[in-house]
């Protein structure tokens, strides 16, 4: 809540994180799963003492080097930079909370890169057995990086005993790190990593020329890397789903069972798409390289890679959306507002509580309601919405035909987005039953709008200018103004 908002036209700054993150995940998962692939394949080559497989490993690891140590490593730093730019409040919570964990991850990361470089540059120069050991060490160390980041990532959604219901920190950082989703998420990521390692290996194996028998053998071998995910993946996904916050579970279940109802089904759609991609991908691997390695070529391998990217895209996207409207579940909303801050801000007023809004507001005239409303929008809404045009969740489009009243009502409604009503009733046996229900339909989708009533009014005044009605009114006003500007001439002739 105390940082300026980086405005990115059309896609909004959130997608900057999203795109870099998805790109990174697609490579970094390969960096770890591919480590296991190198280790196992090199063990295979060693057992068979076959130079042809060694040659393949050499080629594969060069591809690995160029992809993971450059794009993988840099894009990983890129996520970190991007969250600092697009969501500095969230980033600073993570950094202040998990700083030392990141430090520990860094030791793994540095060792990982050093090991891989050592592995790569000693290929063929070292005793084969020791070189094989080096590959296994690489996998072990790279798994360490996953272990640490997995705790931080899952802790953002399922933070265990770290918080109480009001969003106050009551536990230690370890409660957040070893949270309920830690183990299932770790397992799921490992399965994805093995599968991705297989897909990348299919790409490199498909380029083998002139050795059809080896090529087909390696294709089938690589295809089998889907197996762990196929066998155990669904189990762990179910386990993972049970660790999610009940509200999130509810949104997923109701979304999936009644896809299409209402306007909030994007998350369900993306999860559905993710399931489709996972099954489709495995199906393609079965009919492609596994059952028909003869017909498999590099174009097909690239198609698989693209499908794999589609899977990762939807998987990461849905994981991000599950956390909505929080950036750290139950603690901080995506706009940087902390849950335990709401009452305070409502009492003090938004402009008083947000350093940047206050500073910017001080440069405006007091009666500039629309200007103040614009600042409210910037600091409370722009982390997820773009303002004009047809951009990502553009307010102009979402507000559509709503008029002034409707917008004011909407804002009033959204003030209570965090409120959960509980109702006491008696069941047939006479026991007291407490049913809880969100006060507004936007609960679980949007943070509450905070501030004094006049600040909220300013926000709706500004939103009116964005809506279709407001735009038309604005155009009319401009025309009227032009008319009055040309008017004086006619009045002078009259007098």
């Amino acid at each position, binding site marked *: *809540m*105390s*940082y*300026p*908002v*980086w*405005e*990115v*036209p059309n896609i909004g700054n959130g997608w900057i994180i999203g795109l*870099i993150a998805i790109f990174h995940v697609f490579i970094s998962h390969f960096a770890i799963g591919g480590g296991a692939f190198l280790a196992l394949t090199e063990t295979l080559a060693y057992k068979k003492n076959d130079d042809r497989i060694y040659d393949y490993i050499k080629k594969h690891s060069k591809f690995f080097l*160029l992809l993971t140590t*450059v*794009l993988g*490593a*840099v894009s990983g*730093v*890129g996520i970190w*930079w*991007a969250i*600092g*730019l697009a969501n*500095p*409040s969230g*980033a*600073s*919570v993570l*950094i*202040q*909370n998990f*700083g*030392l964990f*990141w*430090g*520990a991850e*860094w*030791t*793994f*990361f*540095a*060792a990982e*890169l*050093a*090991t891989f*470089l*050592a592995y790569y540059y*000693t290929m063929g*120069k*070292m005793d084969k057995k020791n070189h094989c050991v080096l590959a296994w060490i690489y996998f072990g160390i790279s798994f360490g990086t996953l272990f640490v980041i997995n705790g931080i990532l899952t802790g953002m959604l399922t933070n265990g005993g770290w918080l109480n219901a009001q969003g106050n920190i009551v536990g*230690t*950082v*370890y409660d957040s790190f070893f949270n309920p989703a830690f183990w299932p998420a770790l397992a799921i990521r490992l399965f994805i990593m093995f599968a991705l390692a297989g897909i990348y290996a299919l790409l490199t194996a498909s380029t083998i020329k002139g050795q059809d028998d080896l090529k087909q053998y390696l294709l089938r071998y690589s295809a089998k890397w889907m197996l762990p995910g196929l066998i155990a993946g669904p189990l762990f996904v179910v386990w993972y789903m049970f660790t999610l916050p009940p509200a999130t579970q509810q949104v997923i279940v109701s979304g999936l069972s009644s896809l299409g109802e209402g306007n909030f089904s994007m998350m369900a759609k993306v999860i559905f798409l993710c399931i489709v991609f996972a099954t489709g991908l495995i199906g393609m691997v079965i009919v492609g390289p596994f059952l028909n390695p003869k017909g498999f070529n590099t174009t097909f391998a690239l198609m698989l890679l693209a499908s794999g990217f589609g899977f990762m895209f939807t998987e990461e996207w849905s994981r991000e959306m599950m956390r909505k409207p929080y950036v750290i579940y139950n603690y901080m909303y995506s706009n940087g507002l*902390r849950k335990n801050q709401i009452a305070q801000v409502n009492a003090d007023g938004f402009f008083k509580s947000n*350093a*940047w809004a*206050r*500073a*910017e507001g*001080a*440069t405006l005239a007091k009666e500039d309601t629309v200007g103040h409303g614009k600042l409210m929008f*910037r600091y409370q809404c722009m982390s997820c919405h773009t303002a004009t045009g047809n951009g990502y969740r553009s307010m102009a489009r979402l507000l559509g035909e709503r008029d002034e009243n409707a917008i004011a009502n909407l804002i009033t409604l959204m003030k209570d987005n965090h409120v959960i009503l509980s109702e006491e009733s008696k069941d047939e046996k006479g026991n007291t039953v407490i049913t809880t229900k969100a006060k507004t339909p936007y609960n679980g989708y949007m943070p509450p709008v905070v501030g004094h009533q006049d600040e909220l009014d300013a926000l709706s005044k500004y939103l009116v200018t964005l809506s279709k009605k407001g735009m038309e009114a604005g155009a009319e006003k401009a025309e009227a103004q032009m008319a009055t500007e040309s008017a004086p001439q006619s009045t002078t002739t009259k007098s």
Partner: protein
Amino acid sequence: MDPITLYPIGAYQPMPFPAPVWLMETLLVVGFFIHAIPMNVALMGGITSAILLFQGKNKPESYQQRAGKQIAASLPLFTTAAITNGIVPLLFLQILYGPLTYTSSILMAVPWLSVLFLLVIGYYGLYIFNYGQNKLGEKSPWFLLGSSVLFMVIAFFFSNNMTLMLTPEKFLPMYQASPSGMHLNLSEPTLIPRFVHFVLAAVAVTGLAIGSFGLYFKKKDDGYATWLIKTGAGLFLGITLLQTIVGPWFLFTLPGPVQQQFFDVNGAGFMGLNKMASHLFRTSLGLDVIALIAMAIAYVKGSSKAFITGLVSALLLIGAMSEMRHLVRVFSISNILDPNTHAVQPQTEILIIFLVLFVALILYLGWLAKIVHKAYQNK
């Protein structure tokens, strides 16, 4: 007037720091040191090796060709190390000075994020040289040169951000001029001297790296080794002499109060206001002189002993400079943001784990270096 409307900087998150501030400051400086060495070589090594390759253009067996190719081959490794080690100082910078760094980064979001793309392109430029020099022939050194230029742009953006975060009074007008993160800190008087000073230092460090290559080849090929030592020492010597002009230029553009912490013309024996800063300043001047003399000897005689003396004092000098760089930051903003005022609640277990892992990492890297060395010895 409400001060926060003039200096709209955020507050720390309402949760304690995970480790004592002094420790994190130490890690910040140490982290910068281990980042700076490979980063400097990666930064200017491309230009240096390209020049060597152009010099030895028609002489395939010449020392220049050999050295140019060897340096170029090592550049991806230096780049990897620079990126990896860069994480540490940036991490602790964000913890300690987050309210300033996040804001300055957002103001220059576009150039700041473009660093990643420039880095990737430059990185691949190095690999294109190394894997494609046979195909590309004479044109290949241009890729090294190009990478270096891209890396210099990155360095320039870093200079912008690191200076911008120290001047929060610019934040609000800049943001109000444009919220889309397209700013740079070009109006900063220290920007250019700082950038020039640091880039020249990178050339000097590249000289150190070339000389160190010489130390490695001492037993195998004495003539080549001596040439390398002489070249490296000469590079260091020349650049560092140039720094006697650029250094003071940078120093005198610093704001007066910050200068006074290091030295004061009116103080006893030019002693500055801050004792530690003043001693550090004097020590580094001393180390500078030692390094210069040692390198001069190494340059003339090609002596490895002289070079090692120069190398050690130069590394110490870089360490001292890293600390001074940190102190400049502290002095510039201590009245605006002081991490020492924030609560600390050490996460003892993970702190111990981190420190143990850190030591283990160093030991592991040593072991790794040994086995790689052995592998190359055998073949």
